[in-house]
Structure formats: C-alpha cells, structure tokens
C-alpha cells in the first residue's frame, strides 16, 4: 500500500505571524497540501525540543516549525532564541542519523499566505521523498 | 548423581537443550558488558565474565513486564492477562549468588496471602543450571553473606568448570531428568578431587571478612545514628546498585498508552529515587538521600531479616563494582560492627 501513503506533518505555527499567514493562505484560497496538522504556539521561541521529539515518536513523518521573520517577533526576541534552539537541535538530530528534512524551519509573516503555501508544498514534497519515518517511531500496541 | 560433560561436547549439549527448551545464558552485549539473554545459537553463550552486569533475576522479574493489556470498547473494558509462559526454560550459567537471590525474591513474591503469578509462573517453568565460581572476584563476599561460591541450593543441576570438562551434579527431581542426556558421562574419582581443590581455593579467596552476621541486631540500635548523616554523602542517587542488585525487587506499576487500548506494565523501581516515595500531595517521607540510603541498607540488613530471617544481600559485589562514586557496601557493613573507627572519615 506504499502508493497510498501520505505523510503526516505536524506544523508548529507562531500565533502572530505564521498562523496568521496560514489563515491568509486559506482566506485567499491558496491551495496547499492537506498533509499538515497545525498546532498554534505563542511564539517560535516557545518550541520545546520535546514537542518535536514527541511528535516524531508518536508517528509523525515530519515537523515544520514556523515563526515570525527576524525583527518581527511579537515578544521582540523569541524567534531569535528559537533560532538558536532550532539550529542546534536540527544539527543534533541529523548527527544522530535522522534524515535531513524530517524537521524543517521557516519564517512566514502574517502577510505571506503565498509563502506559507509554498513552504508547506516544499516540506510535503521533501517528506514524501524521504518516505515514512521509521527510525524513532514507537511501535503501537499490538493485539 | 556425579557426571561430567566434556568441553568439546559443550556446544552440542547446549544445542540439545535449545531443541527442547528456551535457553537463557550470559551473552556479551558489548566489550565487558554481559547479561542473561535467550540464546539463539550456542556460540552466543559467553561464560568469560565472573558475573553478568544485570543479574539473573531479570529472567523471573523482568525490568519491564506487561501485566495485562486492555482495550476499551465503549464503556466496557476488556483485559487480557499476560501471565502465561509457554515453553519450559533453562537458565544456564548463573552463579550461586544470583541463584540464591532468586530464592530471596521468591520469599516476597510468593506469599501466604498473595502470590505474584508473573514471578511464580516463570520460576516454575525454569530449570536452573548453576555454575560454580572458580575465580571469585575481590569484591565477592558471598560466604560472609551466608552463601558460598559453590552453593548448590536453588540449582537443579550444578556445573563446575574443571578446565577440560564440566563436572555436573544433578540435584533435584527436575535435574535428575537429565541423567540420560547423551553428552553426560560418569565422573572419575580424580574429578571429585579436583572439584574439592577448586572449592577450597575459592572458599579461601572469598573469606569471611565482612561482618554480616548479627547485623540485624546491630542496626536495631542504629536507627538514628549519625552514621546515616555521613554514609550517604557520596551517593548521587542513581539506581545502579538497586537495578544491578540480584535481590532488589521493588517495582512500579504504570499504564502505557491511553484508551482505547494499552497495557499495564510493571517496571523496576529504586528506593534511591526521590520519586519512589513521593506522594501526590508533595509530601515525601524519605525526602533526602540520607533517608533513602538508610532505607536501602536497612531494608537489606534489618527489615528483610526481621520478616524473612535472612539478609537481602548475597554478596555478589555488583554494587561495589559499578557504583560511579565507589560506594562500598562492605565498608558500610563494617561500620556497623564494634570494630569501627571513631570517626567516619577515618574509616
């Protein structure tokens, strides 16, 4: 049934920019793949690496973290702090052997509905290329 | 019955066991790290280390064990118990200390009122083939703790490495069933002499230096001794000594997986963890490392003897070997004896 596999992608969107960007994409009728599930967070700096790992463990095939462009953070520096966490986490996961592209990051502003759809398109394409996440997922309870 | 097994027949012998039973024996996981595992091929068996890292208790009381599975259908719950052990099993190559420890755990798990079916099921379905300890380590103090390097009790068959062959004793009914095994031969009188020599050498090495005897009474008087203020100091609160201890048997019960289906699991737990006794209200009856260290030592040498007439320590020395800060339980035992130095620092 490999042909029918569609990746599940979890997107953490910051409340002030990326979530509004996704909203705009919707109201502007811009299409993007239905593979993403969105979790709204206050700020990309709020992302705890545990969130990303828990998602991957729970059978998510890819994670997207998106926040405000540098300088636009509602909390002034949240996205800058988040950027350091993202950079080190991404490198660390890839070092451990996670495929490049499983966890992705983007800046999407409230005005960038088009960019949002483009990002989701790209991420979905990447994850489709990588195939289902196999390395870290927990085997579900068997009966 | 006294028999022997030539070393050249050893692997075919193991293979013959595997045909009929699930065979568990020490295997090496990494350099210097071995544990008991189910054997897939006789080559895997590795008897080179004196004692495995994880004790043989794991076979009867696994670190993480599913007690039952559950499924929720509407408002109804369905339970699927997991206590059935299908095949008969053989535990090969366990040392006398580990085997004695199993009987210690059995005292707790098989009680008058309640019986731990998971443990008992595994215990009943297991034939134990013990292995004498020709070369006890300097950290071993089994003789002081009431055992010895060649203690037969608990084993169904007992093996002693004679160099070219194994000397084999069939000790119980379960063991006698193997007397027709085609690889066993009649032992020679010289073998018996050799066994005696090996035993004497090992006994001498282990000695009786650790004053375990009478410790229960001594600890009775030490409930609030200043000893406890000092002895815990170096302990960092990891769980190595309790997890690697062949007699420690505390566990935690947790549910894994929320509805509609999941499993109730029991995992080893350790009295050295603050969470072990932490109550939901936030109150912790054993709030610091001092109380937790005391609990560990008192349980082994005072509370357990009070309940079961035996110390809950077999002197395997694992907690000494693997402690990251070099806590030595022998020193702690020594401290309770009348010969102790005046101040703890002098030791």
């Amino acid at each position, binding site marked *: 049934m490999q042909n029918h596999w569609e990746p599940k992608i979890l997107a953490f969107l910051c409340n002030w920019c990326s979530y509004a960007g996704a909203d705009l994409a919707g109201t502007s009728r811009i299409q993007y793949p239905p593979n993403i599930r969105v979790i709204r967070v206050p700020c990309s700096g709020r992302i705890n690496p*545990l969130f990303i790992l828990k998602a991957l463990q729970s059978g998510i095939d890819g994670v997207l973290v998106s926040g405000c462009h540098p300088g636009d953070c509602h909390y002034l520096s949240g996205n800058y702090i988040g950027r350091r966490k993202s950079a080190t986490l991404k490198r660390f996961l890839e070092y451990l052997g996670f495929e490049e592209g499983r966890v992705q990051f983007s800046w999407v502003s409230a005005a960038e509905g088009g960019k949002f759809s483009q990002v989701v398109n790209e991420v979905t394409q990447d994850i489709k290329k990588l195939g289902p996440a196999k390395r870290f997922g927990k085997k579900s309870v068997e009966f | 019955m006294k028999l022997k097994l030539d070393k050249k027949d050893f692997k075919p012998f193991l293979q013959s066991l595997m045909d009929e039973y699930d065979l568990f024996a020490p295997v090496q996981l990494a350099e210097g790290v071995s544990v008991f595992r189910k054997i897939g091929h006789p080559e895997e068996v590795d008897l080179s280390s004196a004692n495995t890292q994880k004790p043989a208790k794991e076979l009867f009381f696994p670190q993480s064990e599913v007690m039952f599975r559950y499924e929720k259908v509407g408002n109804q719950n369905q339970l699927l118990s997991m206590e059935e052990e299908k095949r008969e099993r053989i535990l090969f190559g366990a040392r006398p200390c580990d085997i004695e420890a199993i009987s210690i755990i059995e005292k707790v798990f098989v009680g008058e009122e309640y019986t731990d079916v998971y443990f008992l099921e595994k215990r009943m379905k297991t034939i134990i083939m013990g292995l004498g300890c020709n070369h006890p380590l*300097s950290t071993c103090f089994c003789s002081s703790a009431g055992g010895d390097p060649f203690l037969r009790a608990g084993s169904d068959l007992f093996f002693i490495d004679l160099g070219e062959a194994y000397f084999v004793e069939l000790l119980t009914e379960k063991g006698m069933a193997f007397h027709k095994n085609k690889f066993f031969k009649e032992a020679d009188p010289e073998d018996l002499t050799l066994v005696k020599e090996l035993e004497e050498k090992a006994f001498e090495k282990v000695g009786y230096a650790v004053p375990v005897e009478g410790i229960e009474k001594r600890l009775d008087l030490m409930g609030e001794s200043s000893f406890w203020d000092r002895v815990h100091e170096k302990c960092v609160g990891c769980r190595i000594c309790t997890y690697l201890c062949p007699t420690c048997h505390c566990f935690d019960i947790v549910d894994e997986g929320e509805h509609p289906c999941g499993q109730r699991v029991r995992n080893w737990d350790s009295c050295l963890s603050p969470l072990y006794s932490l109550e939901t209200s936030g109150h912790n009856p054993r709030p610091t490392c001092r109380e937790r260290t005391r609990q560990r030592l008192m349980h082994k040498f005072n509370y357990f003897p009070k309940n079961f007439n035996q110390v809950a320590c077999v002197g395997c020395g694992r907690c000494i070997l693997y402690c990251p800060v070099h806590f030595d339980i022998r020193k702690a035992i020594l401290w309770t004896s009348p010969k102790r130095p005046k101040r703890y620092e002098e030791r």
Partner: protein
Amino acid sequence: MLQEKIREKAKELLEKKAVDLVIGFGEWTLPLRTTPLFIRTPEGTKNLIWNSFCENNLAVYIHKFSQFKVGIVVKGCDARSITALSLEKRFKPGQLFLIGVPCQRMVDRRKVNRAVKGEILQAREEGDLIYVKGEEFEVSLKRDDFLYSSCQVCTHRNPIHADILVGDPVEESPLKEPYEEAKAFEKMSPEERWRFFEKETSRCIRCYACREVCPMCYCTECFVDSSNPKWIEKGLSPSDLEFYHIVRAYHQTGRCSGCGACERACPMGIRLTYLTQKLNRDVKELYHFETGIDTEAPPPLSTYEIEDKQDFIK
C-alpha cells in the same frame, strides 16, 4: 607534590573555618579507583589524595551541599562545570572555594582492565607508568595508552577561575584533535549513525547514572520523571530509551564541559560523550561559545545575536 599541596590548602581552609567542608578525592577499596571524600576536620585532610584515577566530577555535589560553604578539589573540566553553574546561579558568590589542580588526564580503568587477563588486585602509579598486579600477573603499562577519550581531547586541563591553583600549570596540548569523536562519527552515513545510536542506547537500563553524576543535571523534575505531561514511558522500549538519551544530551547544549562523567558512570558501557561533543562543537562553531571559560557570557541558548546563522530556515 600536588597531593601534599591539596592537603595543605584543605587543612588551611578548614583551620581558618573558611569553609564547612572540603570535597576531594580519597582512597577506597578498589584499585584504579578513588572516591569522593567529605572532610570536615583539619586532621581529616590527610586522607585526601591525588592521582590519575580521580575521575569523578565533584561539581555534582554542590547541589547536595548547597547549604554549606564548600571547598572543592577541581580539575580543568570540573572547574568549567562550576563556572557554567555560576552562570545559572546555582550557588551564592563566595560559597565555593575552588582548589584547582592542573590535570594530568585521567586513566580509564576499564581500558586497563581489558589490557590484562584476570582481576587487578593492586595498582599504583609511578611517573608515566601504571603498575598493576593480579594473582598471576604483574605488569607495567604506559599511562598515556589508557586515558579516557574525553581526556585525550581536553583543551582546558588547567582549571580556569579556580580560587587557587596548586602546582604549576600544564601545557594545554590535546593528544587528539578537539572533537575527534564527533568528527569521526560524522563521517559515517546517517543510517550507520542511527544504527550505532540505536545499538548503544539499547543497552540502557534507565538507572539514570549519566544524569545523576552530571553537575548540570539538577532539574527538580527531569522530563522523564514528569507524570503530567508524561513525555515518555518508564519501560525499556527502544524508542523511549532513544528519546531519553537524545534529550539528556541535548539539554547539555552549551552547558557541557566535556568531563565525560556520564560515560564513566554507565554500568552498561554506553558511549555518551560523542553526543555532547557534537553539541559542544556546534555551539563553538555557530556561537563561538565554550562552556565554563567566560564568567560573564550568557549560556548560548539563552541569548542570541541578530546575525546568527539561519541558512537552514526557509
């Protein structure tokens, strides 16, 4: 001799009552090992020792003795841990007195054990040699062949920011390229790397020794212990073990001094330092930060620069 100087200093501190206790190393029961000692009287300082087996990072005890003024014997890496902890305000200024010892690099007892057949019953160190003796052997081994891997790559053997340095500083000359382990690991393919990580963590027995011996692991409630939210289960499922080790290591980003205590503590011989080494390397490369060097620089993950690298962000 370093050992004499440590004793002298410790004695002086206790006599002057400048500290309540001195934490140092002492002899205990096993060869090739030492144990943390907690000395409260000037006479007790005669039990303090110094040799190549002082492998513990004593900085871990400052949490346990947070109510006391503590004199503490530190190597280069331990001192860095303490500086990192000071950035996180884990002790009051003036509460600690660091007796810094220039470190000769510590000996990996497991490597020594593997080099001989049979149990080592006695060991002593003389110059560059270690003499080990068992029932049927007595050999001398070259000390430098048996060093901890974390010590081989060490670039800060002299304790920085110690209150006093006993002995003369040693030359900072790593025996191996810095971050050597991490670099070697990076050369493998992602599949191989994951398989390696999987294999190593599969031995984990969740004793949490790696966490408990680490001076930087002082959270009141570790994420593994939290029941609400429950991040991971408490069993031995491979995925949970991997989860634990990823997060334990990652939480050290910008905080690890590379002392290697985690790996030394592991009873199952799980390789761990290659994880934190990678994080240290990244932090150095991306944010020019090295743990425990600068007493002012904020920890890298709690600060930022506008120009931080962001080429990975779409």
